């Protein structure tokens, strides 16, 4: 871990000047600026490997206490402030249903619901969601039956490889409560934050419309 006081300079070698400033740099900086005030100064990284002493270097940074309420269950975690909500879900809570497609907020695969609103979990830090109600694809279905949107996606064959699908479905579920117009074109526009490279768009639109129609009748 770089020195948090000097997050940008720490790894800028002469030869890497052409390399982009990575998102981690940005996150590192912003954490210092925004979350730093509420971060307990010295806590140990949660990494089992690191804490077992199996790996040289020992604790790698300040970690903070955060409680994430995911799918109705509270998870008390110690996280580095720079950990994204996406990585916290996937790596710390073993909720790997939420997918990382780009890690840059460009593809929509990581969409989850935060207090009912669709949110790109790769573009938000876990520490910012202490106490928020987070819903992922794993929490959408009831114990016995699928969420109507999941059922509609199956019925309409609205996916192929399935990688973007959790994000598509979370967006589609959020859309049901958004002021999206009634037409297919409106749905296409409202779903445009979620890329499907398999090109299942016609069937995704059909699935969303099926659920919307069934809710209004």
């Amino acid at each position: 871990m770089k020195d948090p006081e000097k997050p940008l300079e720490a790894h800028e070698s002469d030869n890497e000047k052409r390399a982009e400033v990575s998102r981690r740099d940005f996150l590192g900086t912003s954490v210092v600026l925004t979350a730093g005030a509420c971060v307990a100064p010295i806590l140990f990284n949660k990494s089992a490997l690191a804490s077992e002493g199996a790996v040289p270097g020992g604790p790698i940074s300040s970690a903070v206490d955060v409680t994430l309420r995911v799918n109705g269950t509270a998870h008390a975690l110690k996280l580095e402030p720079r950990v994204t909500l996406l990585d916290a879900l996937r790596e710390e809570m073993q909720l790997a249903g939420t997918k990382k497609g780009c890690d840059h907020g460009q593809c929509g695969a990581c969409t989850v619901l935060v207090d009912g609103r669709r949110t790109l979990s790769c573009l938000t830090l876990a520490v910012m969601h202490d106490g928020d109600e987070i819903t992922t694809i794993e929490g959408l279905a009831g114990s016995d039956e699928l969420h109507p949107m999941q059922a509609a996606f199956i019925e309409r064959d609205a996916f192929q490889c399935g990688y973007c699908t959790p994000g598509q479905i979370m967006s589609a579920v959020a859309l049901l409560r958004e002021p999206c117009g009634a037409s297919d074109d409106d749905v296409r526009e409202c779903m445009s934050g979620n890329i499907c490279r398999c090109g299942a768009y016609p069937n995704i639109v059909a699935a969303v419309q099926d659920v919307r129609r069934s809710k209004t009748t």
Partner: protein
Amino acid sequence: MASRILGSAIKRREDPRLITGQAKYTDDIVLPGMVYMSVVRSPYGHARIKRIDSKKAEAMPGVLGVFTGQQMKDAGFGPIPCAWVVPGSDCKTPPYPPVAIDTVRYVGNAVAIVVAADRYQARDAADAVEVDYEPLGVVVDAFKATQAGAPQLHGDVPNNVCFHWHVTGGDVESAFKSADVIVKEHIINQRLIPNAMEPRGAVAQYLGATGEITLWSTTQNPHIARFLLSLDTGTPEHKIRVIAPEVGGGFGSKLPHYPEDSMAVFASKTVKRPVKWTEGRSENYRSTTHGRDHIQDVEIAAKRDGTIVGLRAKVWANLGAYLSTAAPGIPTILHGLMLSGVYKIPNIHEDVYGVFTNTTPVDAYRGAGRPEAVFLVERMVDLLARELKMDPVELRRKNMIPPFTDGYTVATGLVYDSGNYEGALAKALEMADYGGLRKKQSEMRAKGQYLGIGLCTYAEICGLGPSQVAGAVGFGGGLWESAIVRFHPSAKVNVMVGISPHGQGEETTFAQIVASELGVDVDDVEITHGDTDQTPMGWGTYGSRGTAVGGGALMGAIKKIKEKAKLLTAHLLEASIDDIDYADGKFFVKGSPDKFKTIQDIALMANVAWNMPKGMEPGLEASAFFDPANFVYPFGAHIAVVEVDAETGEVALKRYIAVDDCGKVINPMIVEGQIHGGIAQGVAQALWEGAVYDDDGQLLTGSLMDYAVPKAAFFPKFELAMTETPTTVNPLGVKGIGETGTIASTPAVYNAVADALAPLGVKTINMPLTPERVWRAIQEARS
């Protein structure tokens, strides 16, 4: 039962796990003690590596090691092999070290490996590895790379020409001399970036005590990965297990054997821990193979009445900096041999130059060679129609190969299996109301509005086999498939197949085949794929071969099950084997349908083996291999309708009509999904997508913000229909459908835009047809 299941749109077996987030992709694999690999990559397009200083990185928290290409080489890890060295050319295979040793040749070329306890630490440490480079000259354009004075990528490849391959059929020189009309065009079939939504990844676990490697990989072909990994890691093939868990799309980009597979194995072996590597998206743009990238000089020759007499082309195919797994075969075998399209073109000649440049290696991308061929042919046919002032439909019909069912040989030497091109075209024209569209077009033109109607009538080569041909064309493997069908005492069925679907839905298709052929419930069939320890040999899922070839193997195993069941039935019913017939799950005595055994009876008896015929082995299990007699050639006719705003250059796709023929359809819902996806990717090439490098070799389109992967709002509803012309090449009578949409839609949409702009005198615009390019072309034509 048979007729009910086969051909019906049953829901996919894959869906429940995918829809609930329970499916496990490679990056979801977590092993005890697992550590993470990050790759240091070159920021230069071409440079000599002067020094790698890893001291700072090695001292960082959590870092287990930083490794160079030289260290990999010293540990016995060899160069990445190319598996398709096309014969009849002078194909050169310069070494492709998994991690660069002296020289980097493209932006993204691996320079060092970092292994650390978590992925954040690994990436931080990768950023801290200091590399001194001495920049060298860069060339990114395939034609320029062949010119005198161009920077040279590899010492033993003069003028960067990896190979010169050609195909000749008939007498092109004479044909062009005798022609009334010759039309020429310079076509840029631009470079594309596949963009599977799941980035590539690898989890490698090396067990020192046994010398065994397990690699979880985002591969389309685990058995090929195992074979090639055994070559470059020096690990015997039987000590390697490759698992392709859920794979989130591939489109050809997960076909190659990649350096990172080898690196992850090396890292696991070296740090003695399981090692995970997962690609970032911008890393994917730089290090996962790209597709297309042809420069084509084409001429078509015809008689005044529209009869095409010859086609010739010179192609510079960009291979990138190194030869990826299948790279040489794509612009040659899968492209050059398809230049007759659906037409009687008696004389064809093409020269293809495979060229190294300072760009990411190029390999298969959905269609792989065939889009570059079909675009070439369909564009030239449209240009010829324009020159002759003929309707493009009329010109196509005049030259089309008439319907055939038992083979048609084209000038390039291929024997198409079956086709009814006129039938597909007629259906598409009817669906589109072609006459009505032309009328509407002329009305709109009178008002200064630009409606365009574009056609593509295509055939493509897929269902890749037979193996004998694979060998003859230099493919470094077979192209057969295998399957095992295993009945349990309760008549539940496990099926193990060699192919490895990753979104194509063959778990469903294959279960449908087993259910309908053997009379079991579709839910009683489980399909296992994607694990070299659990499945029989297979040569991978690409070239639309899963159902055409893998399904053939499955049918072979089913046939053996039926034969054994008949023998057992004859024994149990004390009847002659010649009197036993089978229908709908029942083996019965001919003429006495009430005397029968169900497949469930047979499965139980074969497994308990209480009363077997003398000499019959117990169990009900069969294994079969299938090597097709020929490729399959699906075909169809696509029509795109666009409106172009001449003031802004914006192209609006108003309608898209697709009539495809993939032989017999097993699951229409899945087939439709494949066509949707294919069209989306092909339209995207025509209108939005294109990889751009600057002259220094920097990839300017290095993220989803810079490279326009289409979104839901980009498309109208597609109007689809099928015709059905079975093939005799495989027992199911099926042809591939995974790539047809991509192959057909790019020329259909391009031709539509060109048709819209014809009154303005616009002839050529390089793809993608972005508003800026269209607007500029209109301005140039007007001035």
